[in-house]
């Protein structure tokens, strides 16, 4: 089976909803009522706020990440380096709504650093986006320091360069190549951030396009208005994706514990230690606060609630099915791409891989809105909630699966294709003896990652969810909305633990524990 059926399904999943959106938007533009919406102060405010919060979040996350990554790179080897790197990987798998709860436990009324009502609105959104994107940017920027040749550090030492001169001649020239790519990625994530703005946004003043789409569909019952907003969001994302394509240099995430041999004096070492400690505290504090609140909360009552277990089973099913679909699609796409790489048609192969990342251009909520508009006139959309959520989560996970599996599959093809041909090794025999041992580790990682992401997703399910189709993140969101904070604390920790357990089990069972 080739990649083309997968591409056809992807195209249908994107183009179908988009056509529906464009039709509704086209009709609505002619109507005078919708014309006034185009020109309304509300839309202008939503647009400006979407951009402003994404810009501020990116600027703060990336500039703080540079400081932390530099401290990390220059501190050298220390006992907890690997552990901190793993901690910085956690925000990637922590469900957004859980992290929000953690931040509320720290900065909310009665929290350790109470901001009161000031938490809700731009402040809270920025705090949450920094929580998610600072560790991500640190992990993306760290390899820049590792790519500085050892000889340059030695030259710097020999020429007597001070810290500023080392930054100017050695570090900045390498870093600036990666900064635009990292900046645009973080900007895109903040622009399409939904759960954070939904839970921490402070009413109409702090609404982004994504949340406005949700409100139009779920509260105002205005599909036409939602279509206009979705079309706007689509064009914004397409523009940012286009820019990102031009600046596509994005380093591989650092997963090793090796440190560069960069000599620093004692004072710099102390300063680096303080910076690292501050970053670790910021990332760990919400989780610790949440754990603290959960263990003093009504644990037995929440855990004995059948709704919690129903939601957990539903979340797990959605996660596993979405991940399986995602991996299958990624496998087919990457197999065709590897064949193309093998016959030196690199550009075509790269475009094929890129097609799998279509959700970067068309956000899941926009696809969801399109499907809503497409299905609503014919069927009851809420009856289709689970299949739609699974399909969209599979699409959302596809770029992660491609990124995790791609290098290994390509390498496997390039290195062993000729050898396998010469040994007449193909089909099941090849899979059993060559492909599986070499690919099970990235396969395990991809499966674990996509499952955890889908299990923790509060995006499309918020659009289509009903009391019968309540996933764990939606249950948590409902508890937060009803100010059942003690129950929410237990649910949040349960959800976090559940996601991490599933991640760990899948990665271990599929990926195996020994290094291949």
């Amino acid at each position, binding site marked *: 089976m080739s990649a083309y059926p997968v591409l056809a399904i992807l195209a249908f999943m994107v183009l179908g909803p988009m056509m529906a959106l464009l039709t509704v938007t086209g009709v609505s533009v002619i109507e005078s009522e919708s014309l006034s919406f185009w020109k309304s102060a509300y839309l202008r405010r939503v647009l400006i706020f979407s951009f402003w919060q994404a810009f501020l979040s990116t600027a703060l996350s990336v500039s703080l990440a540079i400081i932390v990554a530099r401290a990390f790179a220059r501190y050298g080897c220390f006992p907890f380096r690997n552990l901190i790197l793993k901690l910085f990987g956690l925000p990637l798998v922590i469900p957004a709504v859980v992290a929000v709860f953690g931040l509320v436990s720290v900065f909310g009324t009665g929290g350790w650093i109470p901001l009161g009502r000031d938490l809700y609105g731009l402040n809270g959104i920025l705090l949450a986006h920094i929580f998610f994107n600072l560790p991500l940017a640190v992990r993306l920027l760290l390899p820049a320091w590792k790519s500085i040749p050892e000889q340059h550090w*030695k*030259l710097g030492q020999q020429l007597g360069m001070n810290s500023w001169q080392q930054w100017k*001649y050695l570090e900045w020239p390498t870093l600036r190549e990666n900064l635009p790519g990292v900046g645009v990625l973080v900007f895109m994530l903040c622009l399409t951030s939904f759960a954070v703005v939904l839970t921490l946004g402070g009413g109409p003043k702090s609404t982004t396009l994504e949340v406005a789409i949700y409100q139009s569909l779920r509260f105002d019952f205005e599909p036409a208005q939602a279509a206009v907003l979705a079309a706007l969001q689509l064009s914004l994302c397409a523009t940012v994706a286009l820019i990102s394509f031009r600046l596509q240099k994005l380093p591989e995430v650092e997963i090793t514990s090796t440190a560069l041999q960069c000599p620093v004096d004692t004072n710099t070492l102390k300063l680096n230690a303080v910076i690292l400690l501050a970053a670790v505290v910021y990332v760990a504090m919400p989780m610790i606060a949440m754990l603290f609140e959960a263990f003093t909360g009504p644990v037995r009552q929440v855990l004995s609630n059948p709704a919690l277990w129903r939601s957990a089973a539903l979340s797990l099913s959605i996660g596993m099915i979405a991940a399986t679909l995602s991996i299958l699609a990624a496998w087919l796409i990457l197999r065709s791409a590897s064949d193309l790489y093998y016959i030196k048609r690199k550009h075509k192969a790269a475009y094929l891989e890129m097609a799998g990342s279509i959700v970067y251009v068309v956000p899941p909520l926009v696809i969801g809105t399109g499907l809503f508009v497409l299905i609503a006139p014919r069927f009851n959309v809420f009856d289709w909630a689970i299949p739609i959520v699974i399909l969209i989560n599979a699409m959302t996970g596809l770029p992660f699966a491609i990124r995790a599996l791609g290098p290994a599959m390509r390498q496997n093809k390039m290195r062993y294709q000729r050898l396998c041909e010469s040994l007449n090794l193909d089909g099941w025999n090849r899979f059993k003896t060559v492909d599986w041992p070499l690919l099970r580790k990235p396969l395990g990682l991809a499966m674990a990652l996509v499952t955890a992401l889908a299990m923790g997703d509060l995006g499309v399910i918020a659009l289509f969810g009903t009391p019968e189709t309540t996933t764990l993140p939606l249950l948590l969101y409902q508890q937060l909305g009803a100010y059942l904070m003690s129950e929410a604390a237990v649910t949040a920790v349960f959800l976090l633990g559940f996601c991490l357990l599933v991640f760990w089990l899948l990665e271990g069972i599929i990926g195996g524990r020994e290094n291949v």
Partner: protein
Amino acid sequence: MFSIRQLCFTYTDTENNTVMPMSFELQAERGEILSLIGPSGSGKTSLLNLIAGFIQASAGQIFVDGEDIQQLPPAQRPVSMVFQSHNLFPHLDVFTNIALGINPSLKLSVDEHQSIEDALVTLGLEGFKKRKPGQLSGGQQQRVAIARALVREHDILLLDEPFAALGPAMRAELIMALKELVSRRKMIALMVSHQPADALLASKHTAFIDNGQVISIQKTSELLNDRKRQEIMSYLGSE
């Protein structure tokens, strides 16, 4: 006069779980290049790193004209080093790459400007000063690195396989140019090389290093024909 006395260092390779104690004893004359040859992993580059101060010796002394430089930080040692690759900062032009050798803040006096111009002429790089390293050939890049070492006016020049990536003709040309410069400026130069032919061309004397020790310092032609020592014979592949 340059000498090293009982310079000790323990090399630890955490990846391969190996530990190699090293102890060096060496002398070199001003005005000539002393070649260092020996098998891979024998300690040649470690010796240069110890002299430059990039790694710290556990004991021993390094004397330059009777003064021990062992306790000095790298920037204060009278040492310039040229590596096999990555000698130049790719985003800076030739002039700036050389100027960094004089003052990293790039605040240069008129005389210092002139010394860079002179070094460019000496190394045959006139007309290249505005070029970036990427616009130069491998040989020209190494010339720039040597020019930077010259403007620093330090006594000791360490060369870590500086010509390994160059073709035979270019290598011979650069070695001859370097030999002339070292002789004229009365510098002390130590050159790690894997090519016995380079050692023969560059050096009156060559040191053979194995297992973290200087096994022998002899006239280069004699060392390359030494049939008495098993280590040298197996390195050179002599019968």
